[in-house]
């Protein structure tokens, strides 16, 4: 299962400046684990205590994965996975 991952500016230090990378996996957790094998350190920017970090939004195509199982959300071959920093505060 191969997907295209859009990487936000703040995480491009991990991908050597690449804006878009490919990864494999059947779920968001597997996709992130696969990214970590090549882009060391990216996993801990995305995952905290076994869940997606609250500072990060992850989408499969147009869907926010928080409403589709979070890390367990499934992906299909050719899907686009977009990572965006959440914009929030108090």
């Amino acid at each position, binding site marked *: 299962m191969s997907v295209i991952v859009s990487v936000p500016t703040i995480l491009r230090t991990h991908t050597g400046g690449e804006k878009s990378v490919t990864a494999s996996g059947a779920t968001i957790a597997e996709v992130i684990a696969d990214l970590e094998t090549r882009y060391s350190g990216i996993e801990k920017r995305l995952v905290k205590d076994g869940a997606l970090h609250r500072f990060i939004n992850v989408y499969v195509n147009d869907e926010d994965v928080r409403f589709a199982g979070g890390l367990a959300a499934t992906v299909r071959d050719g899907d686009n996975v977009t990572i*965006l920093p959440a914009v929030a505060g108090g």
Partner: protein
Amino acid sequence: MLTIRRCLVEAIVAHARRDHPDEACGVVAGPVGSDRPERLIEMTNAERSPTFYRFDATEQLRVWRAMDAADEEPVVIYHSHTATEAYPSRTDISYASQPDAHYVLVSTRDPDIHELRSYRIIDGTVTEEPVEVVES
């Protein structure tokens, strides 16, 4: 320094007044690398709260894609404080992830006089900057 047109300042303040006592939030997009805020986009505060804001995630994806397609970036990221001064809270600092953005805060705690200030927030460090309002 943030240089911004008066009509944009007025639109940000009007948005903050309209959503008061909840916090209002949005972005002003501009051409990548220009540091010039041009296109105001009011965002939905998914929290609808007087003490917290979060861009609606689905709306954010749509807006970010439109900016990408137009070679724009979020030059200004703004939100309001409705009971406190226009200074970044601890939560604001922990979420700030765009080192190139001007974080604009507007306080609506006074019904007649607004307070609008701008900051850079980089790696947890807040630096206030002057705001130059230019005629539209």
